[in-house]
């Protein structure tokens, strides 16, 4: 077990090995985890060791660097894909009340959902836009660096047993109908209407290593930055700032903020609690 492999006497060794592993992953595969939260990465790496028969992080590195398929699996270990529909209903409510009226004044607009995971968030957004009569006027980019979650997102098929929670969130978020208006049940699963995805382009995009999207009116990037160290958070907020049109809107997760970021001054706060910010003009 893990705790017999590493303990307080070789804690430094563990840190060195993890650092080398992340460097190796970057050089070999281009995925850059070097500025992710160290405590989080350590936990995930030790978890992988714990369920394997490998005796050290160095041995794990050997496998990760040489075996691409194993790396893909390891990539899963490192990323957290936990998500839900209308997560933080208050946020969606605020979006509906404070941002939608503004979008209604545009003939056409672009939205970027960064770190969309298995799609629940972007389907929620589509439903909201449809109810507000805006779905036909927009283009949505839903991106993630994990191809695996993007495949699930494209399908829009979820387990039936979690739908009740989604229903509750939907109601709390100020939904205008019933969530079941948007999906069909089949064999313990629910399948969301294809119409909801008409305006969505799902794409592989890495926030750390890929470039900006041009002239976006609204960005949702929620519960992604919490995994980043401050320097990397700053970098990615800079990327968002560049991608947004003047007066464009940035929405972060409820425990994420531009407070203390070097870009803080470039945004004004629309909703402090729901973490909705507006890019200043000029």
């Amino acid at each position: 077990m893990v705790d017999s492999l590493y303990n307080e006497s070789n804690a430094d060794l563990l840190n060195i090995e993890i650092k080398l592993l992340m460097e190796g992953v970057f050089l070999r595969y281009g995925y850059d985890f070097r500025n992710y939260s160290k405590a989080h990465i350590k936990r995930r790496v030790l978890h992988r060791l714990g369920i394997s028969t490998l005796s050290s992080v160095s041995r794990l590195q050997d496998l990760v660097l040489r075996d691409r398929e194993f790396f893909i699996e390891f990539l899963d270990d490192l990323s957290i894909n936990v998500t839900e529909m209308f997560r933080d209903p208050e946020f969606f409510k605020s979006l509906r009340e404070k941002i939608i009226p503004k979008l209604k004044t545009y003939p056409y607009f672009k939205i970027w959902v960064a770190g969309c995971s298995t799609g629940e968030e972007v389907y929620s957004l589509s439903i909201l836009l449809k109810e507000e009569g805006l779905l036909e006027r927009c283009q949505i980019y839903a991106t993630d660096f994990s191809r695996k979650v993007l495949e699930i997102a494209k399908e829009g098929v979820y387990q039936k047993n979690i739908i009740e929670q989604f229903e509750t969130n939907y109601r709390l978020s100020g939904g205008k109908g019933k969530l079941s208006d948007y999906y069909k049940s089949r064999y313990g699963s629910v399948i969301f209407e294809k119409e909801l995805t008409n305006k969505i382009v799902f794409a592989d995009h890495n926030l750390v290593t890929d470039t900006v999207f041009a002239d976006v009116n609204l960005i949702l990037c929620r519960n992604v930055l919490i995994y980043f160290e401050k320097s990397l958070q700053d970098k990615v907020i800079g990327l968002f700032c560049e991608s947004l049109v003047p007066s464009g809107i940035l929405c972060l997760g409820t425990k994420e903020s531009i407070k203390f970021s070097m870009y803080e001054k470039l945004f004004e706060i629309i909703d402090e609690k729901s973490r909705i910010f507006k890019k200043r003009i000029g």
Partner: protein
Amino acid sequence: MYKAIVIGTSYGGPDALKIILPRLSIGFPVPVIIVLHIGDHSNEVFIDYMNSICPLEVKEAESNEKIREGFIYFAPPNYHLLIESDFTFSLTTDQKHNFSRPSIDILFESAAWAYSQSLIGVVLTGANSDGAAGLKMIRDFGGMAIIQNPCSAISPAMPRAALKIARPEVRLRLEEIPDKLIELVGFNKKNSEMF
């Protein structure tokens, strides 16, 4: 020299903390970091209340925040709280652990990596076994493990599990815990009042 205290509790936790935390007075030389299972809802009201009865400042731990001595931090509901080796906080929305998010084990384990033997871990009343593995790790790393005596706990399951797995050196009634903490961190009230 101890540099931090971590506390985990669930059922009965608010009442237990009301007995312990107000006894830690201004100048207390280490941070106190707490996971309380309180459900998915905001703990704003609870934190406000604790602030009104505690001399130390009580707040919710924020992502990337520098951990400061003399502060009492609570994990936000629905997030795991981790401690980085540069003594800042991280949050994650990882799967629940022991049916809990935040999980006591996850806080305790990351705290053990960060503080090693300079850490005090405390498991109080609670209805599951979260915290037992984390407390064992604190102990294995040379830190101090304390539990509330299960017989005196509103819900004995959690300290009992910790007792079985971590074999903590100190088992106390709730009322005895503040003095023990004060003694362990070498906090001499008279000294601090001289400044």
